[in-house]
């Protein structure tokens, strides 16, 4: 059972990939711990920061700390946009 994490913009560079698969169920704190274990501290700090928004299955989430990922979910990390 897995969910997908998607890294947009420069988060892709920080993660070294545009997306990964994670085992579920997975809460926010466990998700950060997973990123800390496998990726750079920069990535964790940035996705946890106020400037990065998250979308769960295409819907923006007001409180990312409350996220719990279930089977088939897609969680996208959205840094500030830089326009067209």
């Amino acid at each position, binding site marked *: 059972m897995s969910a997908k994490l998607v890294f947009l913009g*420069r988060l892709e560079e920080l993660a070294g990939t545009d997306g990964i698969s994670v085992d579920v169920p997975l809460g926010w704190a466990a998700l950060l711990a997973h990123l800390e274990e496998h990726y750079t501290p920069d990535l964790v700090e940035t996705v946890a920061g106020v400037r990065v928004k998250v979308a769960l299955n295409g819907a923006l989430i007001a409180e990312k700390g409350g996220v719990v990922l279930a089977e088939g979910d897609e969680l996208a990390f*959205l840094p500030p946009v*830089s*326009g*067209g």
Partner: protein
Amino acid sequence: MSDVRLLTSGFDPAAELSAFTAAHPQAGGIVSFLGQVREGAGCEALELRHYDPLTLPAMQDLATRVRGRWALDGLLVIHRSGVMLPAEPIVLVAAAARHRRDAFAAADFAMDHLKSESWFWKREKTGGQWRWIEPREQDFEDIARW
């Protein structure tokens, strides 16, 4: 109805604008904005990334807001994603209206909001290196006007 498109390959702004104009013969005025990759600024290529579940729906929402705010005969919003070279078009917005002021305001508003709020992430290639672009302060000032 508005025509809102997110394209992953090139488009011809003149042909699009020509078709839009022909579709709105009842409009007295058509204002358009074309954004293109600047030539000669040292930028070798520009890449825009988008996120499928969010980007086009938000562009469509923006179009609906614009239509609700100004009396338009038609609204066209075309935005590229992907890699573009200098002089290639990035974005085309056109507003057709009975009254000139409505067309100007609608196109201006749409561009300010596309630039500052749309789900695009941009990187530029200069000197062979790709570099992500941070949001510009000017974009926030532009949007605060409305």
